Each structure stands twice: as C-alpha cells, then as structure tokens.
C-alpha cells in the first residue's frame, strides 16, 4: 500500500495504490475515481451498534466504504468534502490518535476506529462534542481538515494553547485542559476566543488553520433569508 497526496493545498486528493487483495476503508463518499480492479463495498465498521453509536454520538457516517483490490492491483483517488489539507499518519500499534468527528478520511485495514467519550468539561467546552474518534492499530491513517493542517510537536511537559474547534487530531499521550482564553470571563468572550485548550506534551497535535463553525457563521450572513 502506497499513498501520495496530489495537489497539496486547499483542494488536495490522496492517491492510494493497492496491491492485489489489499483494502482500505474510507469515509463514505470519499472515493473520487479508481481503477476498474477495485471493488467498492459498504461496511458498518465496528458492527451495527458501533456504526450506530458512531453516527449518533460523533456525527461521523454510519457506513464506511471499503475499497478492495480484489481483481488485481490498482489505485484509488480519495478526497474530502471540505476544502482543506490532507495529512497521512502511520500508526505502529502503540501510538493512538484522537480525531475530531469530521477528520477521518481513510485508513488501512489494520486501523481500528472507536468512538470514545470525552470528559464532561472537554465535551461541553472543547468544541469537539462529547464523543470523538479514537484511531488505534497499525497502518496508514489519512486525515483531512478545514484549511491547512499545522503540526505541533510537544516535548514532555511542553505546553501549547489551541483555540477549541481548530483541533484535528492529537496523540493520546498528550493531555489537555479547557480554560478561559483570558483571565476574566467577559474578556474571554469579547476577545473572540471563549475557551481554549491547553495541551501538554509529549505528543503531536494537528490543528486546522480555519474554524468550520466560524466559517459557517460567516457564510450565513450572505444567505438570503427565505420565508
């Protein structure tokens, strides 16, 4: 399995080459084009209940698609719905990533996807919802973002502050606390940041350069109001 990001930037695609018999899972609707040797199947990853909980709890899709090179080697082109960068991570069996609900694009078969409950304060104020996806296992993991993806590397004990709703993925060795952006409640909101996440290393934090919610609010003002 080899992967390559095409047209890096706002409108990228990822090309994944599959040897005969190999398969990957991808977010439903992610496939743009593929070789005729590749079969597309629909699968409820994690069984019916797993898929159901993923759908209701995280807002991720109920079905994933499986792209299987069942009749010979081939390639598939995948793209996310929103404009934004793609990043490819390699899971080696011990590192795990938490991914916000829209972040998953595709993963090797060895990658396990679970929905995991966050703590109350993180769920309520973190901007990611109460349930996030936990990616573990082994193999390639493809994530997408809204805007560009920025990688923050944290050494043990090193801290970094990220505005909530800019998070894409973070390793499970990091911890974070939700705090007010400034010391005062009023200033916290008037500064436009509200709550922020104080991350503490070691580990990686991937952030997106645009905030989907903020963008949505911006677009809304241009949509004509119908009766």
């Amino acid at each position, binding site marked *: 399995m080899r992967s390559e990001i095409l047209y890096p930037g706002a409108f990228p695609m990822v090309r994944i080459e599959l040897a005969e018999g190999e398969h990957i899972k991808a977010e439903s609707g992610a496939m743009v084009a593929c070789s005729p040797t590749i079969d597309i199947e629909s699968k409820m990853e994690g069984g019916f209940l797993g898929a159901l909980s993923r759908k209701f709890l995280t807002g991720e899709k109920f079905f994933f698609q499986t792209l299987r090179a069942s009749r010979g080697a081939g390639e598939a082109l995948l793209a996310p719905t929103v404009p934004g960068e793609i990043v490819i991570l390699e899971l080696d069996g011990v590192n795990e990533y938490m991914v916000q609900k829209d972040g998953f694009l595709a993963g090797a078969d060895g990658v396990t996807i679970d929905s995991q*409950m966050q*703590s109350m304060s993180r769920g309520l104020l973190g901007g990611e919802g109460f349930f996030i996806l936990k990616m573990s296992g082994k193999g390639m993991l493809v994530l997408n973002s809204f805007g560009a993806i920025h990688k923050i590397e*944290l050494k043990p004990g090193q801290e970094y502050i990220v505005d909530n709703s800019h998070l894409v993925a973070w390793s499970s060795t*990091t*911890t974070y606390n939700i705090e007010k952006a400034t010391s005062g409640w009023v200033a916290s909101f008037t500064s436009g940041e509200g709550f922020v996440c104080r991350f503490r290393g070691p580990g990686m934090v991937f952030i997106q350069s645009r905030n989907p919610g903020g963008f949505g609010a911006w677009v809304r003002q241009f949509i004509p109001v119908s009766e």
Partner: protein
Amino acid sequence: MGTTVHSSFRITDAEAAREHSFVNESLENDIMTELHPNALCFGEEFAASGAPCLVHVEEHELTITFIAGRDGVENRSESVRFTELTVSAGGLDHNQLVIAWTGPTGQRTLYLKSPEVIRAFRHAAPDHLTQPIERAAEQVRQVRQRHRAVWTLVGATLLAVVLGLWFGSDLLVELAVDRIPIEWEQKLGEAAYRDFLAHQDVMKEGPAVTAVTEMTQRMIGQIPDNPYKFDVTVVKSEVVNAFALPGGFIVVFTGLMKKAESPEEVAGVLAHELNHVLQRHGLERIVKQLGFVAVISIALGNPPGMGGMMKQLGIELMTLKFGRAQETEADLTGLQLLYRAKIDPSGMMTFFQRLAEKDEGRVEWLSTHPMSRARADRLQAELAAMPPLKAEPFSFDWTHVRASVDSR
C-alpha cells in the same frame, strides 16, 4: 509467520527481542515487524510522536528495545535500573503509566499502556517505587470514578427531564391554558370553523338539524356555568365522524347519523365532543405542541439527519399519548353529561362497540384515539358504578331523521 513465533515473543518478549537485535542487526523487514511495540518513548533524539519500543521488566531493571523504523534505524536496546525511575499517571485520560528518568542522552519519558507490562512492573518494582505506583493507580481509579459519576448524573438528569415532560407536562399545559381567555379561544375556533364550512355542503334545516339541536340543547342545559355559546352544524358527508373546535364549534357529519341506530348513539358522540370543548382540549393541544417543540428544540437544537428524525418522532409520540388521554377524559365526562341530561348512556357504548368491529388489529399505543373496544369497556365499568338512570326519550322520530339523511 506462524502463530508460534508470534506468541513466543509475547512470552519472553524483550529477551527474545534483544537476541534478535543483537544477532541479526539487519534482519529483513517482515521479521522485524514481529516485534510488537508496547510503549512509546519520548526523548530529545526521538520524533515528537514518540519512538515505539518494547519494554521488558526484569529483576532490577527495565529493558527498552527501540524498534527499527523504516528510516533505517536499527533495533537497539538500553536498560535502566529501577532506582533511577520516577513514575506517575498520564496521558489523555490519565490511564497510562508514565515512567521518567535521566539517561545518558538526557531526559527520557516512557508511556506504558499495556496492562501486562504495567502488572509486571508493579510486581517487580522495588519499595521506593511502590508508593508512587499505587498513587498513580489511585489517580487512574479516581479519574474513572469521576467520569462515571458525572455521566451517571447527566444520564439521571436527562431521564428526569424526559420523565418530567412525559408526566408533568399536563399540569404545566393546564396552567398555561387557564390563562388564555375564552374570547381568544372562540376567535381561534371560529376562524377555523368558517374556513372549514366554506368548502362543505352544510345542512341548514331539516329533521337532522332539528334532532341534533334538541340533543345539544338538552345537554347544554345540564352544564353548570357554561361560558361557551355552542354552535353545532350538520355537514353532508359520508364520513362517519364528528369533531369539535376550540370555542364551542361542533361539526357532525351525516355519515355518522346514518351509521347510528338510535339517537342516543349520536348523543353519545355529541357529549364526547362537547366535553372536548369544555375541557379546552384543542387549546391544550396547541399549547402542548408548541411548548414541546420549543423545549425539544432548545434541548436538541436542530439536528440534521437521523437526529432530526428522532426529534420528529419524539414530538409525534408525545402528541399521540396526549391525544389518547384527552379522548379518555372526554369519554368519561361525556358519559356523566349524558347521565345528567337523562339520555341513555348505553348509546355511547353500543356505538363504540360497532366501531370496534372495524379496528381489530390496530396498535393502541400508536393511535391518537384509544381502541373503541377498550373505550366501550371503560365506559361500561364507569356506568356500572353509577345509580340506575330513568332515561327520557327525545321528541323526534329517529327513523324519520335517518331517512331524511339517507335520501340525499
């Protein structure tokens, strides 16, 4: 690659791993992947995502084998004595064991998640580490307990809100409805009434109208402090039905009169409808629906897709349940009204029994109206509790009235 090789690594793990790395420095990749890392090591020379490694607990030290990556780094091992270690709990959910020490190349931090290794370490650890390990374990337990407690609390609150809505909303609705003046209700009902009648074939006079008017008057005379001016209209239609609008506007279809074998049966339905008005059921329903939609919308927002469907379903179920409660109330109060007006209440029952023959197989829980048979049985029980009634007949001839409706 047989499972035997696989499991032998599990058992003797680092021992074998070390052997591997010493003997075969440049083993082929597929054999290398046999080393299953069980921890992440962080330090100056490693990538920020941590170096996958295999930790093995020995008598007085930890052996850490770094696994060769694709970037050509070879497998190598290092050992660290227990005396140099400090331990704590860490990670996103505070469920990983963090072991830190200062090695020759600087600060090292090890994140352990594998239960077997943690157990082995706990077992082998010397006295000076026992306390910190127990403290870390205690911390993990506390985090888990707190999680559980908070979510139980949230679950209980949600349940309480749902149950409160289900059972307590009737009271709230009644309070709200009591504050709405009758005039508003009448205006509301009248608008809908005029609108409805505009498209219907209304019967202005004739034996049917006279009969319905007599029944209504007899019952209205028995309502103490009646604030409503009832208006009953007969509409020519095959529909076997009658309905009441808020404010005292009642419509009876001729289809119902054709189906009825005695005037008491029609009077029973009328009594039911009159009580819908008197109990202000229409208004209650509007308030309930508006209020419930508002509450649900506040709680759930406007969820797309399946969530939206669930919301709709919840509203529907709530409305159904409410509808049935109202019907039962109108039945029972209707029965009492018939009794006071000295109209034989058995007509109400026979009519429902006749309807019951049609609705076998319906599911009561999913219907706005209670099953006709269940209604009839409930009324029968209620009636049995009342003293016997000496019914007074109506002044009109029912066969004549029915014939006048039928001929059209």
